[in-house]
């Protein structure tokens, strides 16, 4: 490597997240508990700096920095999606975390988790990918246990144990791939795999994918999703089901595009995972009466739809804009749905009865988010699903598109099972105003509005994501 690009200025968004997290811990330690709000302001400033850095970087041609980190449309898009998600969650979770003994830790852990997700998306080296995986995991294990109640401890332990198992598998896979290809860099991986042994390479790839599937919450590594979502407070659940998924799916995309199909037939493998994820997620969501578990299974099925795009990633140029758009749409919509849950003390479908009368705006935001997850026009996920179906169809996997359509129709029923009570008559017991969260309500409305705006403005956004 003669032309080494090692300019730290190319990593402003990542550095901003890191600095924000470090400052959050330091400032938080020296700030009285009642004034911890300034930590959040600081974190939001860091996110703002990161966003500006992303936009500036996005205007430059794609490049590689520090040999192992790619700066292209995918990285820029994931940076933007993660930063916006982090900002939204930090903002609307204010009521839930304000004056909490570990308020600044929450902020720092969310920022670090976001950093890990971004690094996973940009990593072009298996070792960096694993480091990013750890960075996206360890802070989030702590975050899962952040509330320190009975259920969260169990959730954190479950998340940690399955995460540790996935991490070991992934490390073993990395070793095998290194053994087979003689390299860990993505740019030299295709040649290395072409000459190396195919068997270990396939096993290694599957093992690495298993780690990423754990982060993404795809079947069969999805067992932590419902328990962790149900056991943690909604803001934490929103982080865990949104931010690492984005990073892991983008990382999967980047890695697989560098693996020749004729050595390891990964499209079929991903297609099967996609099919099983969306079907199992939907089937399990049917019988849920807890809204958090319902949302948890819905995120599993959403990952399935994204995996469809990855399965045809190498076969059609439509895949990249479809993937990035779907990730953005999913992040906004999912955050909106979790914010709506956080805004209200109700945790079962029945307890949401009569919300339409008491809190019409919140109810509408929730309806927009849920119908958004179904994929009703003009929400963003509709365009995401449409582009995903198109990519699958044009990529020669029409059966996946058909299965996805069937699943979408089926998913409608459990979302409607939640929507219908909102507009039924008021529940007999009076609402407890004190346990509602105003910021979460605003967050739900904002996220739902943004998902609509993204859907309507898809004509402007999609071409941006299509650039290489």
């Amino acid at each position, binding site marked *: 490597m003669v032309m080494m690009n090692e300019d730290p200025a190319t990593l402003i968004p990542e550095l901003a997240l890191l600095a924000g997290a470090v400052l959050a811990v330091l400032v938080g330690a020296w700030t009285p508990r009642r004034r911890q709000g300034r930590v959040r302001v600081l974190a939001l400033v860091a996110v703002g700096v990161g966003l500006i850095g992303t936009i500036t970087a996005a205007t430059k041609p794609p490049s590689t920095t520090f040999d192992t980190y790619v700066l292209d449309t995918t990285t820029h898009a994931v940076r933007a999606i993660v930063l916006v998600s982090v900002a939204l969650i930090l903002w609307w979770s204010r009521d839930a975390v304000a004056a909490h003994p570990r308020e600044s830790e929450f902020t720092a852990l969310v920022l670090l988790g976001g950093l890990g997700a971004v690094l996973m998306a940009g990593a072009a080296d298996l070792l960096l990918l694993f480091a990013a995986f750890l960075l996206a995991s360890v802070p989030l294990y702590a975050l899962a246990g952040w509330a320190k109640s009975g259920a969260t401890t169990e959730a954190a332990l479950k998340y940690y144990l399955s995460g540790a198992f996935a991490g070991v598998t992934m490390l073993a896979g990395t070793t095998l791939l290194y053994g087979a290809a003689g390299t860990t860099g993505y740019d030299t991986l295709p040649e290395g795999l072409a000459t190396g042994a195919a068997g270990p390479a396939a096993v290694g790839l599957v093992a690495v994918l298993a780690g990423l599937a754990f982060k993404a919450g795809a079947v069969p590594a999805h067992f932590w999703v419902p328990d962790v979502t149900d056991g943690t407070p909604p803001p934490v659940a929103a982080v865990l089901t949104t931010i690492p998924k984005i990073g892991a799916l983008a990382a999967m995309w980047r890695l697989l595009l560098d693996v020749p199909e004729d050595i390891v037939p990964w499209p079929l493998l991903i297609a099967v995972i996609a099919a099983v994820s969306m079907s199992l997620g939907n089937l399990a969501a049917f019988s849920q009466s807890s809204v958090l578990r319902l949302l948890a299974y819905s995120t599993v099925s959403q990952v399935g739809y994204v995996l469809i795009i990855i399965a045809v990633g190498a076969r059609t140029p*439509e895949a990249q*804009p479809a993937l990035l758009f779907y990730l953005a749409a999913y992040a906004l919509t999912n955050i909106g749905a979790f914010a709506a849950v956080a805004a209200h003390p109700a945790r079962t479908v029945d307890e949401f009865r009569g919300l339409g009368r008491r809190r019409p705006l919140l109810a509408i935001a929730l309806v927009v988010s849920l119908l958004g997850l*179904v994929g*009703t*026009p*003009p929400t963003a996920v509709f*365009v995401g699903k*449409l*582009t995903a*179906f*198109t990519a699958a*169809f044009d990529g020669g996997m*029409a059966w996946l*598109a058909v299965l996805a*359509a069937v699943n979408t*129709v089926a998913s*409608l029923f459990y979302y*409607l099972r939640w929507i*219908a009570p909102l*507009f*039924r*008559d008021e529940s007999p017991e009076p609402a407890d105003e004190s346990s509602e969260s105003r910021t979460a309500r605003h967050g739900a409305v904002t996220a739902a509005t943004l998902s609509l705006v993204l859907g309507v403005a*898809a*004509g402007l956004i*999609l*071409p941006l994501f*299509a650039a290489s």
Partner: protein
Amino acid sequence: MLSIVVFLPAVVALALAALPDTSTPRRYTVPWVVTGLVQLVLVAVMWLQLPPSGYGFVEQVAWIPSAGISYHLGVDGLSLPLVAMTVVVFTAAAIYSLREHQRPKSYVLLFLALQTVSVGVFVALDLILFFLFFDLSIVFMYFVIAGWGQGSRARSAALTFFLYTFLGSLALLLGFILIYLAATPHTFDIPALAAQNPLTAGGPVAGAALLAIGMGLAVKTPLVPFHTWLPPAHTEAPAAGSAVLAGVLLKMGTYGFVRIAMPLLPASWRQFAGVVVVLGVVSVIYGALVALAQTDLKRMIAYTSVNHMGYVLLGVGAAGLVAETDAQARQLATTGAVTQMVSHGLITGALFLLAGALHERGRTYDMGAYGGLAARTPRFAGLFAVAAFASLGLPGFSGFIAEFQIFTGALGATPVATAIAVVGILLTAGLFLVALSRMLLGGLRYPDAPGTPRPFPDLRARELAAIVPLLLLATLIGLVPRTLLDTIDPASRVLNELVAR
């Protein structure tokens, strides 16, 4: 021009939303009436300048080009009469609601929004745009029924309405996506798809698309057995809401058949035209029979809507059956079907407004509670009789023109089905005559709170101004149908050529 017609009510609604909340209804209802009248003038201008063939007043702006979605509007002879009918029915509803006292601001805002999306459905030339307008009409109508419904069951009726029609609309969307995927390049543009005809050969994909689209439209139309949402929704909705629901929203279903299902899936349409005919005839007979058994006036009118929409389906189905053989019959059947949509919108709008006026006076729709109204309220009785005769298809009214054309067109194609459908006319005649004699003739009888006789006045000027123009138009179409038919004919010829491909 077309965008102005579509979005004028929405702009007025935004302006009205800025006004402070007051209980004086006129501050909101008068601008609503004026909006309707302005829209009517614009539609009249468009009618005069409509090009003899193809789409007029086309507007196309790229929206999501990479997904083949554009903002594409245009009118032709199939849509313009329906746009005109929509605006007329909405204006009548506005005049009727001039004194709406219950939360007048939100009421008018909702109806104005509904007016925008209703016109939008009929002029949209992009499947996604069509779907958006179609879905929003469901949302707004849900709030009209839930917020201004008359019974305590209004919310549950509204929810039933929403769930049924929303699920139907998603089936529709699925069908659209199938057509979209089959086309190369992928597009949602209706004229482009009609020209490209990606599913020429028919086959399972085209059949599945037709099934999905057909189910979605059948729920909205509604066809038996997807009609169960209709009677409760109508019973609970306010009078103006019922008039709009039956007059305009049901037409979105049947319009979808002529605008989307027939030209975009011609092969499958011809293949399954027999099924459509059977569904239409079943709706005709079932709607008429169930209407005959009703004692509730509004439910009865609601079921006659099922009956009348059945004729439309008979017409378009028959056109599919003889698409390749008999140009004259298919022409008669489709023109008749479109005429029936316009005619039914006007007449049913009038009937529901009359039922609303009756409810305002007697507080019940039970036909048994009324008797001898002809002597007490001659204007109501006269108009109700005219509306009833128009609805049962008496010569001289628009319904006759429409149904006559449908029957002549369909007779050659499916003599048995047509003969059965004619029985439906006899049934509706019977049920309207029974209703007339029960309510208008005999000894004077109307519901009365014990001890406090309630006044039972005749129709007021406001109600007359809302109902008379609707019936007048229906009569006018019945007496001089040429203006309307000359507009529809070229467009239905184009449609039939597309189906016959």
